[in-house]
């Protein structure tokens, strides 16, 4: 347990602070951009799904970034601890950070008089964050390129805004706005597959390299 905590401590100290700062800034400027007080359930869902969920793209895809440099990656892979373990610890840590930020934001919405089912919305928004971030992790792992890791969820988000419901069906990310939660189950399943797939792809590259 101690060694996992060490990995997370290093992650929190060196790798993720800038991304957390960007996410916090995104949330702090939200009252200037969208309504955050006295909202009904539909408008609250809109704020969470179309705005707050974007921090998933900021926080999750960079989990492979510290080993972007091939020399560092080679060095890390010679260590006793498995690569996937390091990535999973970082991913879980970042998911926890996302959940905390989302929880605080939902608390702020409730404090400001918004009326909505907090538990359901928390789970729904977190699922969307995980799916957006998972897309990033998967494509980063697949292409070994952070830019593609950002590009995939951003394009998915833009496509969803531009009438994507017709094409995305059960993977449509803004379903809570119309009171539907079935899509969130699919998104949660998709997020697990994408994150696991991304880590597997990343580590598969390693094994091939050291054959």
């Amino acid at each position, binding site marked *: 347990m101690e060694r996992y905590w060490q990995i997370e401590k290093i992650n929190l100290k060196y790798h993720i602070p800038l991304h957390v700062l*960007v996410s916090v800034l*995104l949330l702090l400027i939200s009252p*200037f*951009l*969208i*309504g955050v*007080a*006295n*909202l*009904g359930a539909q*408008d609250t869902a*809109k704020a969470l799904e179309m705005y707050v969920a*974007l921090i998933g*793209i*900021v926080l999750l895809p960079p989990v492979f970034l510290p080993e*972007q440099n091939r020399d560092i990656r080679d060095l890390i892979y010679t260590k006793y601890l498995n690569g996937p373990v390091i990535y999973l610890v970082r991913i879980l840590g970042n998911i926890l950070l996302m959940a905390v930020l989302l929880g605080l934001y939902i608390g702020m919405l409730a404090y400001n*008089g918004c009326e909505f089912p907090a538990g359901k919305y928390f789970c729904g928004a977190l699922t969307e964050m995980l799916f957006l971030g998972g897309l990033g992790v998967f494509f980063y792992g697949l*292409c070994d*390129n*952070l*830019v*593609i890791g*950002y*590009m995939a969820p*951003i*394009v998915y988000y*833009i*496509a969803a*805004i*531009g*009438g994507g419901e017709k*094409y995305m069906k059960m993977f449509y990310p803004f379903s809570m706005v119309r009171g539907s939660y079935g899509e969130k189950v699919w998104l949660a399943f998709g997020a697990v597959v994408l994150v696991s797939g991304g880590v597997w792809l990343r580590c598969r590259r390693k094994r091939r390299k050291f054959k």
Partner: protein
Amino acid sequence: MLGQLFVRECRQTARSLIFWLIVLILIFDFTTQLGEMEIGEEPQPGQESYGYRQSKDPDIIMRSTLGQLTEEYVRENYTTYPIGFYKSVTLNEKDDARIGEILEETAGIAGRESAKQIIEEWYAARNEPGLAGELLKIEPADGLTYEQFTDLMDEADKILGGGSNYGKEYREKNAQVPKTYEEAVKEYDALLEKDRLTGGYARLFCDYMVIFLGILPVFLAVTRGLRDRRSMMQELIYTRKCSSLTVIVSRYLAMIVMLTLPVLILSLNPLLKCMSYAGKAGIAADMLAFVKYTFGWLLPTIMVVSALGMLLTELTDTAAAVLVQGAWWFIAVFSGADSLRGGMYGWSLTPRHNTELNWQGFHDGFAQLAANRLLYTAAALLLVVLTVFIYSQKRKGRLHIRGKILADRKNKS
């Protein structure tokens, strides 16, 4: 030297995965939005509706605005665009009561119950033939002057935090009146005669493409910027004889050309549809319209997004440009959501004109659009100059934010 480097950069771009992903996304955007595009037919007499237009008549402005206020007052929810971004506002008791008073002073409607009754009657009446799609209009109270009306609406706008349907900017937008057959024919004639058919469809093409082109170039720019560092060739390239200006400009030109090419190729599809229709209908279509609009409308966006991506990547050696451009795109696209019909281009990175019609709106807003596009072109060139400066400083060993010396210091501390 510039020519040689330019060709080499184009070849490298053509071999990069990210470029082909961008091309695929553009094809997806085109096919989902314009793949089934059909040339609009001439309006016929006796049609159920010919669409809507904005009116500048104070009486219509008052009636339409009061209609909106009544609807939103009943809904207890107001739509505003404080900085051009959609915001839903629900008022507290005190402000809600004041809006009720304003509605009573301007429209003579006392209380929410009376307003609700009017809305219910209106929705019942809308089911009757001839009224479908028409917006609610409320007669102003007796003796209300236009000046009093504007003062009270300004107050309502202030209570709602600005950017509401009652502010000066949006009041005229409320005054939507149905187009007559004659007006619809006039607008269609403008498409055939002034726009020569292809002009209108080229604007529609640009409207759809500019959404994705407001962000996609940054991915190519960042990837190109980080490529030297990833392959550990940065220092080697720094030592080459070639000037910083030549290196950066050749990269930039290659990016612009490689991003514009797929757009031009995609535009061939709607162009051919337009030419085929024009041939049958005997219209002298403008064959170069899509090229002109691509260069005039889309190129400045491609230029500035690529230049910003290059500058931030060169400065930080990270993918931070993606996040910055993402934020800019988000604000630009959402702030343009209320000006889809064109004519109000403002300073948006992604000017919208989501119809092949409204030549008059385009004509009236042309000076604004031209200023917008020139500004972004100038900004792009300035960003390229700044990138050249940063690159030359790095070659001299300065501005290495993520350099080894800094990393070494961190380890010692």
